[in-house]
């Protein structure tokens, strides 16, 4: 038998994008050997054993000759088990067990089990996207990923459960069937979750603040004693945000798929709510690793990133959030390449008023030493607070409120008001690059948040009497703009400004309970 060369196209996941990789298999007479070159990592090296066993256990012959596999481009590091399927296909063609030219039209991606089964891979949606853009006709993926890969529509997606099924299809045999998916229909039929704003008893002021925050996309900080219901309320924030659009859902799905976190369905249909623990590392928060994978901030794309006990997070982790908060994306640079992850989320923080949590509580005395109070406050100030438009105090609910039965559902009604306010914003902001009031830059704030004299006077008074800072001024304007949008008005009134000022950052001395 003469030496034969075969090529198969597959994809490597780089961040949330897929990079085309060509698997070249060369079979040469000689002592049996199996070498993979082209900067493979350990998982790719182990691919040899999986492919060998899968081929044999699927009834194929494993060529006992000198096999060289190259993963091109050869200068980029390849990681993970997703190349198995393409490798096996290339070997089948090179060894003459699969005839014709089946690998020119279809790309392949999948992990093989020793028994020849095909296991799901991460990033099927990104691969389908890259595959369509590369002009290939179709993509062969694990059956479990077929739904996800066919979300984009433009591609012939073939889901295979076993190596044998793949070979049969490529040999011109039966095309394995899978359900057609339509992202719009999936979104429309997504069941409502069990969460509703009405389940939060009392806390009318907090709910109002959540409504405003959702309407303008404003980042929010809740300050209140432990057990006052901050995180319960935050978890219900996604239920009042507008439903995901198809484009948004696809972006979210792409990130979750790249992280291997896609649940049962092919599409993420609800806005993500991510609540990392305060011990999270900065890599865990914004993404990282030798092969960069998305962090919590990216997983919260188009949803909510909830940081409970904000002051307890490590400072480097909080600092790392600066870039996503400003740019809506995270760039991770490695020596070889840099990867950009999307990270456009609403930041919701929760914190106790002081380390012991009882500052300002009528019934308990705060026992924190002044020095630790100052340190605690210092943690909450600075660049992160710059990006938080609203700060709301949360008090413990009263006994009566706790004893009252569950409230009527509210999320639908609030969500409708929020959606209307968002619609007004996208109309006004069309072409500006910003999508909601929270994203207005300093220049846009001055341009788009015009005040009448009475409203201006209120802002001046807040500046003088309440020591509103310059950045507090801009934040109040953005929130006031949202309040007018919620009310369906173009003009910002004095009432809007007065409300917005109530959500300002309080002076450290005010929180410390001292007068000067």
């Amino acid at each position, binding site marked *: 038998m003469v030496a034969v060369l075969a090529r198969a196209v597959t994809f490597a996941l780089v961040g949330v994008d897929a990079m085309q990789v060509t698997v070249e298999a060369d079979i040469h007479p000689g002592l049996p050997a199996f070498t993979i070159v082209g900067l493979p990592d350990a998982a790719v090296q182990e691919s040899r054993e999986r492919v060998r066993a899968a081929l044999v256990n699927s009834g194929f012959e494993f060529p006992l000759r000198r096999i060289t596999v190259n993963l091109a481009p050869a200068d980029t590091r390849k990681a993970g088990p997703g190349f198995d399927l393409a490798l096996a296909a290339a070997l089948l063609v090179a060894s003459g067990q699969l005839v014709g030219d089946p690998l020119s039209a279809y790309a392949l991606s999948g992990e093989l089990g020793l028994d020849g089964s095909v296991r799901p891979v991460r990033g099927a949606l990104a691969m389908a996207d890259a595959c369509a853009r590369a002009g290939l006709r179709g993509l062969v993926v694990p059956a479990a990923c077929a739904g996800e890969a066919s979300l984009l529509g433009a591609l012939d997606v073939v889901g295979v459960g076993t190596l044998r099924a793949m070979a049969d299809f490529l040999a011109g045999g039966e095309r394995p069937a899978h359900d057609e998916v339509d992202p719009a229909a999936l979104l429309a039929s997504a069941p409502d979750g069990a969460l509703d704003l009405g389940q939060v008893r009392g806390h009318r*002021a907090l709910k*109002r603040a959540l409504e405003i925050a959702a309407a303008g996309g404003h980042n929010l900080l809740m*300050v209140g004693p432990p057990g006052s219901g901050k995180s319960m309320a935050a978890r219900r924030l996604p239920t009042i945000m507008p439903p995901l659009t198809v484009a948004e859902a696809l972006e979210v799905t792409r990130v979750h798929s790249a992280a291997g976190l896609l649940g049962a369905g092919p599409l993420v249909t609800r806005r993500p709510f991510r609540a990392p623990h305060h011990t999270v590392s900065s890599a865990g928060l914004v993404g990282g690793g030798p092969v960069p994978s998305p962090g919590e901030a990216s997983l919260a794309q188009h949803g909510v990133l909830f940081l409970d006990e904000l002051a307890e997070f490590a400072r480097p982790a909080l600092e790392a959030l600066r870039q996503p908060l400003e740019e809506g994306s995270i760039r991770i640079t490695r020596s070889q390449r840099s990867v950009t992850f999307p990270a456009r989320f609403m930041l919701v923080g929760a914190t106790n008023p002081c380390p012991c949590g009882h500052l*300002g509580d*009528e019934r308990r005395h705060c026992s924190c030493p002044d020095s630790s109070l100052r340190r605690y406050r210092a943690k909450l100030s600075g660049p992160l607070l710059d990006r938080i438009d609203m700060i709301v105090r949360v008090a413990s609910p009263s006994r009566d409120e706790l004893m009252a039965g569950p409230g009527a559902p509210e999320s639908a009604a609030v969500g409708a008001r929020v959606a209307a306010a968002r619609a007004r914003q996208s109309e006004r902001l069309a072409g500006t690059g910003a999508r909601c009031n929270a994203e207005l830059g300093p220049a846009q704030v001055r341009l788009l948040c015009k005040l009448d004299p009475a409203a201006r006077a209120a802002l001046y008074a807040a500046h003088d*009497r309440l020591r509103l800072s310059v950045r507090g001024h801009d934040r109040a304007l953005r929130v006031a703009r949202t309040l007018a949008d919620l009310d369906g008005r173009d003009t910002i009134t004095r009432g809007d400004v007065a*409300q917005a000022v109530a959500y300002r950052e309080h002076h450290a001395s005010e929180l410390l309970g001292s007068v*000067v």
Partner: protein
Amino acid sequence: MRACDPCLRRGALLGMLGPWIARALGQHRRLPAVLGLDDDALVAAVCGRKRAEVDAELARFDAAGMRRKAAAAGLATVCPHAEAFPAPLRHGPDAVAALWLLGDPSRLHALNEEQSVAVVGARRPSAYGLETARALCRDLAAAGVPVVSGMALGIDSAAHEGALEGGGLTVAVLAGAADLAYPRSRAGLHRRIAATGLVMSELPPGARPFRWSFPARNRIMAGLGAMTIVVEGTLNSGSLITAGFAQDLGRDLGAVPGHVTSVLAAGPNALIAEGAQVVRSVADVLDALYGAGSGPLPAPRQAALDARLAALLEAVERGTGSPDALASDSQAMADVVAGLTELELLGLVRRDAGGNYVRCA
């Protein structure tokens, strides 16, 4: 005006022994008893084996050098042998030997001519406590009553601020040296008090405060005040120590009542239960000091508010200060939040650390 050598030496000795005085305190020997010991006995009680060293250092004491040091720090000294020394501090076994003063020492005369009031309270008070202390002291100062306090965070600072606002004399008694602002975050207040009032201490210039010097300072505050008023404090707070000193000295005791459920009000409420004068406003204090009806009553603040704001203000005055309790739905909440901010802008309400609104006094 300057302190005589032996008094100055005693003051210097306290500074020298500062770090170890706590050793002489025990179950049977309270602070006044220790401070009441004469120099030799004090050294003996505090120093133990190091006594010879301290005695030697004391023998080398240079009064002129100490005066130069005080002058360099901008401090004047006064001792009981001077006429200007505050009369209320002359008596008792633990009477103050020497006071270091920051500010114009001639202001001491006012303390002998007028009855002063000491106002003390929690370092981390509620907004209600802060507002009450500030307004009370503003009105006391405006009525010509010197206000004595300790420049601590919270109520003490509010008391000084109020007195400065009212344009009257205010005296800060520090636990450390008078030339050092303690706590350091009150450096600005320290400067302003020294400019129009007095900062005093029984410790020599440069001395940091010691654990024992806080209650020792409290005894001076209680001594200076014809009446000591506790605004807020828990049951075992330093404010109640001051109140205890005032009681021991036979001075009047006043307390600003608070919510019975509030831990911060537990101290003053307990004092009231034991017979302290209820202090609701400056009128109660003036009545107690000068006899009923003799004090000038400040006119109630008048503000023209629209009906909506007036109703909100009334609700806050009734103690319903949380937005949650004031609005039943989202739309009403918008009006309530906006209205409360308007009241805040007018200076009629303020928000406390828990996010509730209280009436500004």
